[in-house]
């Protein structure tokens, strides 16, 4: 593969990973401050009302993406991978609540981080 093409792919992967991580961070911030929607039904009632319940555990993906972004922006892959490991663990553990929604993004981040890691190693 030509070198300029490789560089372009790595750059594109890095930008995509940064944007994706930022998206996850925004989602985590939303869930932390606003919450996840849920129907609340009173006893004896047939219909309920939608309310948002802040999810304190969202602080974990927020911190994880901050670490991941820090690693990507400073080109320190180990730090980025640590952030990713925390994020993916959270996604699996919290699969039935907010973690399940993060799983597809975690999968994409895994692909992008792999591409970036291989490219940087080859370049060095």
């Amino acid at each position, binding site marked *: 593969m030509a070198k300029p093409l490789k560089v372009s792919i790595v750059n594109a992967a890095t930008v995509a990973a940064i944007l994706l991580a930022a998206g996850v961070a925004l989602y985590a911030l939303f869930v932390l401050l606003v919450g996840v929607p849920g129907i609340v039904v009173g006893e004896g009632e047939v219909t309920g009302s939608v309310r948002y319940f802040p999810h304190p555990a969202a602080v974990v993906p927020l911190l994880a993406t901050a670490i991941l972004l820090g690693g990507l922006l400073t080109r320190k892959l180990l730090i980025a991978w640590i952030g990713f490991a925390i994020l993916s663990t959270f996604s699996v553990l*919290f699969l039935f609540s907010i973690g399940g929604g993060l799983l597809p993004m975690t999968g994409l981040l895994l692909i992008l981080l792999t591409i970036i890691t291989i490219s940087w190693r080859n370049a060095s």
Partner: protein
Amino acid sequence: MKIKTTSLLLSLVLVTIGVTPVVGNSRSLPPVEGPPPPVEVNGDELAVGDIVATGIRGEGGDCNIDAVKVRTTAPGQGKTQWLGIVLDTHCRVVVNAKWEGPLTDGPVDVIEPLLRILPVSPTIPEKPQLDLMSRGGASGLSALACSLKTSEQLVFMYGYGGTWDKLTRKTGKLTFCYDGVNATINSQSGTCQGSTPGSWSWVVDACVTIDVRSGPAPIVWRTGRGDYHCNPPSQFPCNIPAQDGYYHSLYDSEDGHSNGTSHCSFWWTGVIVAGVDRQILQGCT
């Protein structure tokens, strides 16, 4: 019928809640047998200083008065009206105070004699406790003798993230009044909550109160149940267990005892993810 009193000072407070037909100054014809019905007086038309009835002084200095029934209507929804009535030295039953709102807003010289004649050692309740008096026709006097306590808990099913990973929730709240002999439910409620964290959701199928013992009784309680499932049941992650959909029920139960103690319990049935736990929000001790 005659009322014989040896005390020159008699304080009566009569509270009527809600829209009660007011009986005016009408007098009924005495029945052939038995004592005549008491004269009913419309308390709404009374003002401080009005004479409700006049008695006759007996030989021993006692004051004999025809039975009098004073009725008042609540000035509005949830409001309370009080009348202070005193027997003066001239053997007359006189209105000495009239006010709206909590008992504690009334004149001290009217309230204190009333509190002294209560059967149990009374404490003037804090203003929130005076909500008791707005319950359908409950006597203000009996409400004074009891204290309020609220117990509330949150029961929840959690996922593999532990108790931070709440998926379905059930709350139950019991407020009861206790006086050392009996407890009575003042109010009780419960809610059920699902969530929609992604393309799937935790659905509330039903939310019901399955048992209530209102009292008065030595122990009162309430029990609620919430039914839930993961939807759509056949799709990931709802189809992870062998039995699709994680159909389950959460139960909460709160009780109140005549001595003021309260216990909260919970249990569940059906298929759950990782576990069920609860948080005590208040009371439950």
